[in-house]
């Protein structure tokens, strides 16, 4: 039996790092916890940043996962505005940008990911912004006055959510997407076509197959230049073209990394006393028989719980099918599972009604569902994915059969 840890350090005070700390205390661990974040705020929810918070409907404090007092009351040493600079595996300590190094028996790396930068001219002009942190959004809000011209580069969740808020706030919005559909990485063609239609109906100019050549302006952005020479005048450009895992600290320490820090089912890295969780972790995806990196709230929470349980030698939490959501206009998109590798897409309901779902099948089994304003499809879909259920496509597409009945038949 390994000796119980007395000092646990967590690098990264986001949703995964915060969850690891909360789960440790919930499990009764009474040793030291150092939670190290490079942002000024305590751990907070990021999803509203591109939704309610951007829209001005929510103050910053409501984003906090726990009130500030929680950390002192639970003896969690929350270190803010201070970056970890080096992981010393031999001495078992973390060196910080400011102040004395922090020693640990067990370490969690939950450093998250950062927005990918575009390697085009003008990418560092003022007014070319990204959306990852509270500070990013606060800057974006200052520039986003009604009537301002916003170009969104990249039609993923973040880009489209920001485009929706922009349109609702009275900005003139253009969305540029390099692929033939929006949401190309996360959803199939039916969902992509629907959201293109939704944004166009809201008055936004959605351009597919768009090829960006650079940002124009001197000091501040004045336009976006496309291949072929067209220039779209704008006051503001939001770049949302995916993220890169913050794995440099781990890599420098000699911890095995691929497209993320490689961890096992216990969240353990190649070093037995170092765990990784959240966006940065390359982890087993048990429902899909492969490994991968997930960027989501579900993954952050689950990763934090897994690491906490493993460090204490406790039983791991029940693993959930990956789940996601996106709020745009009056539409709630709820996703369960991962659609990669699907060989069939089954539409249930009519997209024109703004309440429909797409089920993704692989070799007859349900591997994912995208449900728009259709919670029953989402919730039952989640169970179908977990059970790797086989269902006749015609049955899934038949709205006269309720999801309850579909679930009951398939799940027994």
């Amino acid at each position, binding site marked *: 039996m390994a000796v119980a840890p007395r000092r646990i350090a967590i690098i990264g005070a986001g949703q995964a790092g915060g969850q690891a700390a909360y789960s440790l205390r919930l499990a009764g661990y009474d040793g030291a916890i150092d939670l190290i974040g490079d942002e000024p705020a305590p751990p907070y929810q990021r999803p509203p940043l591109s939704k309610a918070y951007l829209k001005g409907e929510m103050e910053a404090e409501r984003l906090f996962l726990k009130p500030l007092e929680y950390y002192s009351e639970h003896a969690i040493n929350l270190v803010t505005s201070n970056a970890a600079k080096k992981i010393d595996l031999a001495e078992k300590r973390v060196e910080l940008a400011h102040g004395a190094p922090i020693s640990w028996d067990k370490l969690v790396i939950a450093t998250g990911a950062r927005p990918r930068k575009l390697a085009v001219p003008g990418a560092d002009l003022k007014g070319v912004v990204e959306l990852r942190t509270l500070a990013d959004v606060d800057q974006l809000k200052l520039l986003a006055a009604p009537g301002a011209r916003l170009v969104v580069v990249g039609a993923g969740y973040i880009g489209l959510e920001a485009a929706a808020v922009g349109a609702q706030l009275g900005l003139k919005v253009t969305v540029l997407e390099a692929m033939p559909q929006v949401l190309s990485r996360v959803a199939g063609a039916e969902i992509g076509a629907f959201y293109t239609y939704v944004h166009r109906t809201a008055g936004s100019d959605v351009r597919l197959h768009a090829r960006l050549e650079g940002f124009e302006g001197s000091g501040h952005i004045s336009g976006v230049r496309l291949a072929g020479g067209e220039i779209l005048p704008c006051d503001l450009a939001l770049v949302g073209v995916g993220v890169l895992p913050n794995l440099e600290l781990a890599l420098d320490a000699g911890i095995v990394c691929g497209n993320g820090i490689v961890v096992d089912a216990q969240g353990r890295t190649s070093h037995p006393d170092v765990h990784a969780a959240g966006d940065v972790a390359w982890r087993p995806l048990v429902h899909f028989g492969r490994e991968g990196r997930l960027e989501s*709230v579900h993954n952050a929470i689950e990763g934090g719980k897994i690491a906490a349980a493993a460090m204490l030698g406790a039983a791991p939490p029940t693993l959930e099918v990956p789940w996601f959501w996106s709020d745009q206009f009056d539409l709630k998109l709820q996703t369960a599972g991962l659609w990669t590798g699907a060989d069939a897409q089954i539409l249930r309901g009519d997209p024109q009604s703004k309440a429909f779902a797409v089920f993704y099948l692989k070799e007859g089994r349900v591997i994912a569902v995208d449900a728009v304003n259709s*919670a029953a499809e989402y919730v039952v879909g989640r169970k179908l994915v977990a059970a790797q259920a086989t269902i006749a496509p015609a049955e899934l597409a038949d709205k006269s059969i309720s999801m309850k009945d579909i679930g009951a038949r398939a799940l027994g």
Partner: protein
Amino acid sequence: MPKITYVDASGTERTVEGKNGMTVMETAIKHNVPGIDADCGGACACATCHVYVDAAFTEKVGKPSAMEQSMLDFAENVKENSRLSCQIKIRDDLDGLKVTTPESQH
């Protein structure tokens, strides 16, 4: 300010002061009330803020929306008085509201 009482599965009561406009879920998080996970932070996407509304208040609190009802339909241990606490906004007339949290949210 309206007072909200949270009762955990073992019967322990915690009464805190809520603020109009905040949700019953947010108020629990703000006051470190255990028993409500709220994984999605109030987006009606996860059903981990499930509570049972005390009989005296079920009428005042009202019925769930269609979306919330669907989430509840498939949650664990759902009863007639189940609600997602992220969808209950605090108002003056909810002063004294009592909700009970289930044994587990997952």
